[in-house]
């Protein structure tokens, strides 16, 4: 069973690499946030798998809950920030930044 867990953990990590590419390249800022959100969700899964490999899931599951909750908080904050203050393609907005928003 450990073999399957190690393999699935490595597979998860390898599948995160294309998403990493999207974080680095992604044409708009929100593309990057979506990619970060996906990686955050999968990090919670990886924490559970690591816990199962160490035979100590009871400890790691608390981290995973906290990580999942804070991940949602982060994407919500980013969505509201970009909804109001910034255009998508990264130019500075015309009325002199976000000073009065």
């Amino acid at each position, binding site marked *: 069973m450990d073999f399957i867990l190690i393999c699935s953990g490595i597979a998860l990590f390898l599948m995160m690499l294309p998403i990493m590419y999207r974080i680095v390249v992604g044409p708009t800022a929100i593309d990057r946030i979506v990619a970060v959100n996906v990686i955050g969700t999968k990090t919670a899964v990886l924490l559970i798998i690591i816990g199962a490999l160490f035979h100590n899931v009871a*400890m790691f599951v*608390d981290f995973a*809950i906290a990580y999942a909750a804070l991940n*949602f*908080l982060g994407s*919500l904050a980013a969505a*509201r920030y970009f909804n109001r203050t910034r255009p998508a393609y990264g130019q500075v907005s015309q009325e002199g930044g976000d000073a009065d928003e």
Partner: protein
Amino acid sequence: MKFFGLLSVIIVGFLLLSATKDFPNWGDEDSPANSGPVSSFYIEKTEEKTKVPNMVTAVLADYRGYDTMFETVVIFIAGIGIIAVLRTYGSNESIPKNQVGDEGAGLLARMTCSLILPFIQLFALYVVAHGHHSPGGGFQGGVMLGASYILLALAYGLARAKSCFSEKRTLVFAALGIFIYVGWGVLCLVMGSEFLNYSALDSILPGGVEMARSHSMLAVEIGVALTVTAIMFSMFSNLSTKGRLDKGL
């Protein structure tokens, strides 16, 4: 400019990685951390003397109580500093009237937050109270609890969150946390022992000397959690509104 940033990051990263060679090996018996009498004392005697299975909590809240107390004070000072720098009073004319008041993030986000907020808060209290047995404690639980209020402010608007956790209440809670911590130490002093020596409290707490230390750790963690919660929310509300506290993100 970006290129110089990348170059400096690579150079600093290389220096940091090259410094890791000088660390002692993993589990090296002769390293200073392992050869002294202190670590072995903690490892062997902590559970026997304090009845706390999680050694980290015992070291953090009992053996090194001074350290944690002033860490909490540092967080308090950071929050006070942010308020002192950013907070502006009086009306600011640059905002049009119709933009004051923050309606939140839409129906879907509000419904989701109303579903998950109670569980996040419950989990935060669990992390605070269960720090004796599993990873956790005042700082982590306080961050989760503060994050739940930040989530409320993001989903329902800052005005809704401020009706639960107003600015005055924030400052009162932040000070109350430190008051609990220091007051517990002074209580030990009054009972005729050293400052923050919890074993003096066995005459007023149930369960003997060991359980007195265990309960005292819980009380101290609650103080830390109150301060961290209040300062987290205060920082968010000041930073996201540029100190005006009128309209969230």
